[in-house]
């Protein structure tokens, strides 16, 4: 059977888009923290694996990135969902809901 990680694999980009759409512009560390917080232990990311996902979303034009200075004198790369990203999130979200609904119905039927 697929592990939780494998089940979540396909929806990682979607979750990142979701976090950014709800919480506004954010940077890598904060995104991981928010996802892990909401996952409540169900999913613990290897944090570095977030960055290829973010860069892929950026290349696809679903998020936009910019460097911002923070008080400590360092810079952080902030990501923000684009209009295209919001559209994708809505469409993919509906599709995901339909598929998960189907799976739940089938599983429920087999238990009945």
């Amino acid at each position, binding site marked *: 059977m697929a592990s939780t990680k494998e089940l979540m694999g396909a929806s990682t980009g979607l979750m990142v888009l979701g976090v950014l759409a709800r919480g506004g512009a954010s*940077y*890598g*560390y*904060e995104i991981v923290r928010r996802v892990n917080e909401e996952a409540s232990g169900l999913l613990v990311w*290897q*944090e*570095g*694996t977030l*960055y*290829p*996902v973010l*860069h*892929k979303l950026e*290349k696809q034009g679903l998020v936009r990135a910019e460097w911002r200075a*923070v*008080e*400590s004198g*360092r*810079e*952080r*790369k902030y990501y923000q969902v684009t209009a295209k990203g919001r559209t994708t999130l809505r469409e993919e979200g509906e599709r995901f809901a339909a598929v998960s609904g189907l799976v739940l119905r089938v599983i429920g039927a087999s238990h009945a």
Partner: protein
Amino acid sequence: MPDERRRELSADTAARIEALCRRVAVGRGVDEAVRRELCGHMADKLAAYVEGREPVSEEDALLLVERHFGEPEAVGEGMRRVHVRAAADTVARRLAAVFALSCLLELGRNLSTYVVWRQVDWTAAYHHLPPMNLPAGQWVPFVGLAVLPVMVVGAMWGILAWWRRRVRRGERVWYADWSWWSVAAVAAIALVEEEWGRTIVVPSLEGWLRNYSHHAAAYAMLDQAMALMTALVWIWWCSSRPVRWSSWSVVAGFVGALAWLGWMAGRDWRMPPELWWAPEWWTRYVEWVLWWGGFAGASSYAWAVAWRTVTVVVALLLWWLVVVVRRGRDAATA
């Protein structure tokens, strides 16, 4: 969110974070931004541990950060799947670097061969005696000829291992920072110099090879074995997992390109099919390999350079098709 006014990291911790981030090498033009972003992430995480409700020492926090971050190589692999062009640039640079290194070491071997050959030339055995009757001590130059190729491959492996250790420590190696034109110029100069080295050696060996080709069989086989070992060292250098089918495809491609090159360059020596299994063919083959192997095998100096260049281009194209394009396709469908 971590406190932005936190204290500065110690120099040692900052250096360790920096080195860890540098291990996520993607490619020229992307590395610096990736490094800054990942270092920022680790600094944030570190601050969260150090200034949290359950404080831990900076050293322990760093271990936790490294552990939670995951393997930099795995992150690098993911990044390379996204930044296909930059990753391809890095692979091409590594190939150009290993090619230049191979040529320079080969040049050293050619010049050393010439020096050793002068010793052979002076032996009485060369002029008067069959090899089994060589006087004691006069075998040494022949052994020297055989040992030189092995030393070249060993030196190449040593230098590449050294470069790889530097990359893994997060240090920059010359071919990653130089402009493309500079790397290409080094490779081209190395190629031309190496071919020039052959013009000294091969004519001096030519008469011996023509008259005593059966004596040269072992030397010829060593040359071929060295080509194979060189190909294996190249593959080891270009791929961290040489057991992958794609890596073996590149080995096969490289060897195939060499064989094709030999076939084309030695077309005047080609035996009729009915003689392929005759003992004479093998003697001629040894001659042909050595003949082609040097300057004299091609009709001109320019041809020799051109054929060598074609070999490398074929190997590069195979590498591009099998590894880089496939990675790009995987990334697109992931």
